[in-house]
């Protein structure tokens, strides 16, 4: 129940409270009311249909570089 998944913002819908995100090729509409200064291309952590935080791409890259893996390598 506490699972979260990362997804990329494709489109911010008019009222700024929703966005269409891409998660492994699937398009979903999520609530983004909790996220400040959202831009298309940002990565979000989604939980229960709600974006709970932006994912810092630089930090994510650091880890990816360290391990030479991509984010969804958890097979």
């Amino acid at each position, binding site marked *: *129940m*506490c*699972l*979260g998944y990362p997804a990329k913002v494709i489109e911010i819908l008019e009222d700024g409270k929703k966005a269409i995100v891409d998660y492994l090729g699937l398009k979903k509409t999520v*609530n983004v*009311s*909790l*996220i*400040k200064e959202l831009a298309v291309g940002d990565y979000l*952590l989604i*939980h*229960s*249909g*709600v974006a*709970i*935080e932006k*994912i*810092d*791409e630089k*930090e*994510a890259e650091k*880890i990816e570089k*360290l*391990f*030479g*893996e991509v*984010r969804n*390598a*958890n097979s």
Partner: protein
Amino acid sequence: MQTLEKANTIINTIKNNIEKMGRQLRIIEVCGTHTVSIYRNGFHTLFKGYIDFISGPGCPVCVTHEGYIDNLIELAKMNYTIYTFGDLMKVPGKSMSLAEAKSNGAKIKIMYSPVDAVENIAEDEEAIIAAVGFETTVPAFALSLEKVLEKDLKNVKFACELKTIDQPLKVLLKDHIKVDGLILPGHVATILGVDGFKFVEEFEIPSVISGFEKYDILLSLLSLTQSILDNDFTVKNEYKRVVKKEGNTVAKRYIERFFERTDAYFRGLGLIEGGGLRLKSEYSSFSVQLKYDYESFSNSACRCADVLTGKLKPFECPLFEKVCTPQTPKGACMVSQEGSCNAYFRFGKWK
């Protein structure tokens, strides 16, 4: 190949750190998603003899007591439609689970998001949203209540069984368990921030906020063993790509706007002062009154209570694998995908 080398270097450093201490470490992972990651990736065997992993009370389904399930079933009988996360469906109540009640004709619907659920509830449906979860999920319920207010819906209510993480952790560390280190829940910390876990430092036990991928766990164990060696009790953050010092301030404001602390019953830990959240009095008309009979909760031979407080490993429960399986769960720890009995059943190579 390069990846493997790096991972091996980290694994060896963790083991070297522990060898310097000359004893096996007891480490508690508070969150069930960590339990699953540890078992799925085989870290419990990889670090056998080095680390004894204990599963904490951070799975909301596992700490939900049967009394709450009984309440939901009663409400369904009164012709309400219950909206619940799927994880809760198989948790046994005193006489049956929500799944059984549904197959007996009760109106129970699975929701993926409380916000979407509220958007789609029909005008003539008397709906009750089963609000279960820790701080990770509370903002989603706050947003759904906001939607109820905006749309002026009179037919939606919340059955709150929300939990906070700080109080049960304090009780656990004070009275129930002796551990060398804590792996703190990354998604609760996403909302509460590193600041939200500062209280752990008072217990003088090293701790680290961790993500959920295998490399997150390895880096967290590296950080944790280093902290243990250094007697360093500051809360470390190994999930920096998501967790900020102050957490998600918008989400925290949402929680404060709609919810206030209340006492809450935790399976395994009992009634905990300030361990839960309820709707503030100005929103009480959106809240369902639940009736609890705490005395009757500790039923059956299920040993979830001991599992959740680190006294027993799942395989030491006499029902484990014999009568209790994910298909026929006898307790919440076997029901939830994030429960420790379930994780042991699926991934445990403990023999």
